[in-house]
């Protein structure tokens, strides 16, 4: 356990910019935007997304706020908060993508691999520490940022509503479900498991290919094209496409996809019950074994 903790701490120290600073900076920027909107300094209006206090000048909106029951308010609020958190999730997703591709390639390139392997840590433990970091630990690091964003949003809205005599200060807070924090973390963990085949594939490419990006893309492109030509199917492409998106929106997810919603923990059972999920897990296991194999063979050290 101590070894795993030391390995994970090492990864966080090395990748603190992508894993810790970047999501926090995005959270701070988003918080500033939210505060600016509620204090009337700016507003955001695009074709897809409106974030402005001008809607509270609308009589209908005000009437809805006065009459809506708590479940309706909670539902609307959740949708808004999910959208607000998307930039944080995208930031960590990019950081994870870069990490997966580079983690085994970089240690080989800068030859630190020889130092890491001179210590009594098995290749399997090292590989599993990186998988655990991505699947289990990073969601835990992202969660406080999302919570902070939620709290700043709620506080700004409460102050805005109270000072403008729209609704009382506690109106927002009574509809906010604090148990959503658990839903979010379980949803993120489920996402990590759902996308594990991609994580493992990218790490595998970094472990075996001199150019990890090419190593990741070329074999997939070849297999997808071959499948299309020979079998006239696109199962592999759909498999990858599904893994890139949210798990609740995958084609194999046995529940009607909704645009924006906070998942129920019971949805995770639905995901686990799909064949696709277990195919992904089996593939991930196979790829992890491949990473361990290639890492253990990367001994290109010789002074002779």
């Amino acid at each position: 356990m101590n070894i795993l903790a030391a390995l994970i701490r090492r990864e966080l120290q090395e990748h603190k910019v992508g894993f810790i600073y970047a999501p926090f900076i995005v959270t701070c920027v988003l918080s500033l935007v939210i505060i600016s909107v509620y204090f009337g300094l700016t507003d955001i209006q695009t074709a897809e997304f409106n974030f402005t206090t001008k809607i509270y000048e609308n009589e209908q909106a005000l009437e809805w706020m006065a009459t809506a029951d708590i479940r309706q308010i909670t539902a609307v609020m959740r949708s808004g908060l999910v959208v607000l958190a998307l930039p944080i999730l995208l930031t960590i997703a990019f950081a994870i993508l870069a990490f997966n591709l580079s983690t085994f390639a970089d240690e080989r390139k800068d030859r630190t691999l020889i130092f890491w392997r001179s210590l009594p840590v098995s290749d399997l433990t090292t590989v599993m520490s990186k998988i655990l970091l991505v699947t289990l630990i990073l969601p835990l690091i992202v969660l406080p940022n999302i919570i902070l964003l939620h709290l700043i949003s709620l506080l700004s809205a409460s102050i805005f509503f109270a000072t403008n005599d729209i609704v009382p200060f506690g109106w927002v807070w009574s509809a906010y479900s604090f148990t959503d924090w658990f839903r979010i973390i379980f949803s993120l963990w489920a996402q990590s498991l759902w996308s594990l085949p991609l994580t493992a594939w990218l790490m595998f490419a970094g472990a075996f290919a001199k150019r990890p990006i090419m190593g990741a893309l070329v074999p997939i492109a070849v297999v997808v094209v071959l499948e299309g030509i020979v079998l006239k199917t696109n199962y592999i492409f759909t498999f990858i496409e599904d893994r890139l998106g949210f798990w609740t929106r995958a084609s194999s997810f046995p529940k009607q996809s909704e645009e924006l919603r906070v998942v129920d923990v019971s949805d995770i059972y639905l995901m686990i019950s799909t064949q696709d999920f277990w195919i992904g897990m089996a593939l991930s296991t196979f790829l992890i074994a491949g990473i361990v194999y290639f890492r253990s063979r990367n001994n290109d050290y010789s002074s002779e």
Partner: protein
Amino acid sequence: MEREFAVKAKGVIKSYDNSHALDGIDLEVRSGQVLGLIGPNGAGKSTFLQAVLGLLNTEGELEVLGLDPRKERHKLLQKVCSITDVAVLPKWMTVEQVLQYVDGVHPRFSLEKAKSILSKTDIKNHSKIKTLSRGLVVQLHLSIVMAIDAELLVLDEPTLGLDLVYRKEFYSQLIEDYYDGNKTILISTHQVEEIEGVLSDAIFMNQGRIVMKDSIDAINERFLELRPNQESLERARSLNPMHIRTELGREVFLFEGTEIDKLNGLGEVRPPFIADLFMAIMDKTKSEVQE
């Protein structure tokens, strides 16, 4: 129970594309030996050390500290430390971070001891490794290794690229502060003259084979070097030296198994330097092959 042999190798072979990097190595390294692996580039020194560390798959029998390095590498590395010329400490880490990391993963590492060793150097705990000179990085690596209670230390060209001061410091620190008579050390280096006083035993390697192995004491008894006086040149030559070389215009004779009494009086007699002995043995092997 104390182990008699730290390393036992029998018929160890490593082949690459029909060439043998190791061509049937037979070797027994007793616990407590400080063994120097001496040989030219391509002799197989690093390959053998990699095999000892379990980094290479080899044919033949190889046992290190009673373990098979190929199958029990993880267990072995709890008892073995290594420094190689190419082992790079991660540049992004601070000294404190690398110490904390090793402390977290190595059951035999003493953080206090490492910090105490480092306190005697110019290396600061908060320094990033990328800001340290190559000499200081090697010193940091040695400090880490010295704080590990290992049974076997493998050093593969550890001081390559360092200036003379750091090289001297490295070996004096190694022997004075680390070696306690129980630890076994394997050293491969091109700077043979600098480790000569450190070694208890030496093996000479060439083209993947061991061409000679012995203790330094036995070598000093077996081989003698004579710088004959001008008038004793012919007499010295008649004693059948194994090798003759010229140094600053003066002939130097190397004798194997010749009694010192026979040489006394013919000139300056002393045990040869390891590097000179190695060159002589290489020349001898080469001429034997040509014949």
